């Protein structure tokens, strides 16, 4: 079970507000994310108190209407179509169903993200036959959404590489040289903003626009995910910062790579 401290929601909110000012290209996405953060925080607290037997049914009844209302801050077509999504989509998402359409998936993710941080995610996703551990979430078996490096507090020390679950947002350690998609341990390529010169250890973000973000791509399976380096920017919140990495994702797409798991905004 992943416990989210109330301060974490506030940190994510502050970070998203900062990023929305700094990255106009991601303003729409971050506005919707901020609206969803409120829903997630309150639904997590409610789920913690209620301990629902069926998370899908409980979320459909108590969280889904709020997600639909928050989606009014997103693109108009999405807000219109979100209202038509119901409990079956949430149940399918928790069971690892891969056939959900983009809107159904968005609503299902948004409606279960908060409660899943407050209940036993493993039990809530028991219907998902995906393996636990390794490159999948050890709690719920969900796929990795993003990668991040912990901040070791010293330039000559590299922090552990962690993966964050796309479903319950739990984090787990995964070897830094291993592809989170196929497990390949060689032929890994990272794409990042150009920097002059050479470096030892972790560089500072040095004011560059995406200094702490990079694309980790695998030439074996042609997939990638975004890596957030907290050693370069300790104030970063991986889930929020990843939403701003769309330009890097577009570049990865040009190079023939496909994102391992689109984020909650489908990007």
């Amino acid at each position, binding site marked *: 079970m992943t416990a989210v401290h109330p301060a974490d929601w506030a940190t994510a909110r502050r970070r998203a507000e900062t990023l929305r000012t700094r*990255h106009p290209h991601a303003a729409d996405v971050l506005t919707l994310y901020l609206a969803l953060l409120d829903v997630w925080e309150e639904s997590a607290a409610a789920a913690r108190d209620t301990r629902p037997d069926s998370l899908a049914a409980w979320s459909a009844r108590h969280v889904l209407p709020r997600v639909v209302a928050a989606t009014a801050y997103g693109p108009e077509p999405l807000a219109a179509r979100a209202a038509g999504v119901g409990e079956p989509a949430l149940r399918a998402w928790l069971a690892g169903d891969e056939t959900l359409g*983009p809107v159904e*998936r968005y609503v299902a993710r948004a409606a279960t993200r908060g409660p899943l941080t407050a209940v036993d995610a493993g039990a809530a996703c028991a219907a998902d036959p995906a393996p636990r551990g390794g490159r999948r979430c050890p709690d719920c078996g969900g796929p990795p959404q993003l990668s991040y490096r912990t901040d070791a507090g010293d330039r000559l*020390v*590299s922090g552990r590489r962690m993966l964050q679950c796309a479903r319950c947002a739990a984090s787990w350690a995964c070897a830094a040289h291993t592809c989170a998609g196929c497990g390949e341990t060689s032929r890994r390529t990272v794409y990042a903003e150009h920097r002059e010169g050479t470096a030892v250890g972790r560089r500072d973000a040095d004011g560059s626009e995406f200094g702490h973000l990079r694309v980790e791509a695998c030439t074996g399976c042609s997939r990638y995910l975004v890596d957030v380096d907290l050693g370069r920017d300790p104030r970063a919140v991986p889930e929020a910062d990843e939403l701003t990495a769309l330009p890097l994702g577009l570049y990865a797409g040009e190079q023939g790579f496909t994102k391992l798991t689109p984020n909650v905004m489908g990007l």
Partner: protein
Amino acid sequence: MEDTTRREFMGIGAAATGALGVSALGFDLGPAHTVRQRLRIEGATVSRSVCPYCAVGCSLLAYTRRTGRKTELLQIEGDPDSPVNEGTLCPKGASSLELAVSRRRVPSPLYRAPGATEFKRVSWEFTLDKLARNIKASRDRTLVTKDADGNTVNRCEGIAFAGGAAFSSEEGYLATKVMRGLGVVHLEQQARV
């Protein structure tokens, strides 16, 4: 490698929609495309390596970029997954980057002839030949065929060999074979890797 699942196929579909300027959920991707066009993005290959200095054998992650036929070292950092150093680098290990990129690195052998006051640049062919001749001369000059009791020993007492910390098992084996072939008995290895 796993096959592409339907979930990933949906992701591909979303990306394809994005190429048209609007994401699958209706977000305008135009501003992101504009940012992408002005960004200078570069790729680097990540490889694992081992620090060449002391006997601890710290693991490194090396970032390299290939430009034409030349491979350029961009960055090194401690490997966080190594049980030996757990992502750390000591100042000396950190300086190993200089082995590859230092402007003061000597790019070719230098030789100062007996009586000369200056080093001059020489070829590797000359250097290896000179080393071989000097080793052969030292070995011939200091080879002891019998000890004080008349036992046959055939040992070279004028050459000593010290193996480096980053020697692999195979390199250590080869070095030992070569040195024993010359009769060298003062043989030491620091290898721990």
